[in-house]
């Protein structure tokens, strides 16, 4: 086993350079993702659509770019929100926005509009999808971001990877092997 490693060990400088190269590739990807996350102010600035309740606008596997720097969500905007107790975010359109009660002086400054969402392809609104006892969303608490950009079909890779976890291992292995085995 060690004999197969001999050529690498005989030239440790080059081997180290390749390992460094691999680390560089990984950290560049990580930095790009994180800086995008900072720019959009969202923990996950790019999401993949997993189901068809927004068809024909978004199909399964489409890539959505999110923006989270707005204080409010307007009616008609497509938002991605998290429901308490469920870990999969949902992407639907805002159909109602109720202003907080109270006018002028007695208006609560911290109160934000109550939002109701609905999928374009659904008949009913999302009240049934929310957490028990919750009938409206809050911009700050529940919403992860609002959809601004769209790329079709590219995200299907992610769906494949999450549905067949062994693919992830295989791909990582191949990537690592490629970078390390490539001389020069």
């Amino acid at each position, binding site marked *: 086993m060690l004999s197969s490693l001999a050529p690498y060990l005989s030239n440790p400088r080059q081997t180290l350079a390749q390992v460094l190269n691999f680390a560089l590739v990984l950290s560049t990807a990580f930095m790009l993702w994180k800086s995008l996350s900072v720019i959009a102010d969202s923990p*996950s600035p790019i999401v993949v*659509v997993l189901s068809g309740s927004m068809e024909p606008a978004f199909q399964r596997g489409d890539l959505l770019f999110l923006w989270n720097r707005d204080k409010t969500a307007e009616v008609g905007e497509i938002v991605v929100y998290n429901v308490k107790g469920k870990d999969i975010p949902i992407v639907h359109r805002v159909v109602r926005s*109720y202003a907080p009660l109270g006018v002028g002086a007695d208006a609560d400054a911290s109160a934000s509009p*109550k939002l109701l969402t*609905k999928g374009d392809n659904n008949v009913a609104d999302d009240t049934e999808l929310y957490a028990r006892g919750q009938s409206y969303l809050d911009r700050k608490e529940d919403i992860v971001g609002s959809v601004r950009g769209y*790329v079709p079909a590219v995200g299907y890779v992610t769906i494949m990877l999450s549905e067949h976890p062994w693919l992830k291992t295989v791909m990582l292995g191949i990537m690592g092997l490629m970078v390390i085995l490539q001389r020069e």
Partner: protein
Amino acid sequence: MHNALNRLQATFGFFTSCAFTLALIIAVLSLIPIPASTSSPSASVAVRNVQVVKGRPHYYSPKREEYAQIRFDLNADLSSLFTWNTKQLFVYVTANYPNGKDGQGDLSETVIWDTIIPATSTPYSWQNLKQKYFPEKKKSNSKSRRDSNAKTKTTDLVKPGVLSLKNQKPKYQITDPSGVISERSNATLQVSWNLQPWVGSLVWDQGYLGQRIGKWNAGKAGRSEPFDFPPLKGTKTDTVKDKEGPRTPEAGSASPVIEI
């Protein structure tokens, strides 16, 4: 150094960078008005009839709320929004009313009607290309297929994005979290749209890049005259929004591309 694997990798890498560059070029080009649009979108909406009745959200609900049903007329010409990078147009009518009883306060907005207008097929759209280069082998089906093709051809002649509705019933009956919607004043109806591209950024009638396609014709901003919600009609709770009790909608789930 030039083994098959290397070449495959290089080809795939080149393909992905080409595809992404092309998508980027399309996304940027579609923001520039070329070819220049001949007209700007226009719409007018007017209230026909407003009724407020008591009801409950679904059959088994103990909640009693007031529901408003607003009938309206809508005339819109949004055909200039259909450019070469338009996948669909989502048009929606909202009822906006101040939350204060005296017609003051922040606006609440609720959608009362919406529609999706998909872009019509062109000789280069996916279905037609597939039909041209990979025609279905089945003979028995060919006749009906040709019929449906003929049908789509006739619809092609219709310009998408022209809406004309008379005394349209709303899709959604609206209510308020307080349960009371009657006798509110200074409400308006408004037409808005959301443009979905094949690839690129989404455009709304107000907001981002709004100046490019978003501009309404001056004086033709799709907004109705102010109206008041009438007092409650009848005291019986005979209206039920959903006949069959609560329905669970499909969750449109999405997942982060990378989870760290």
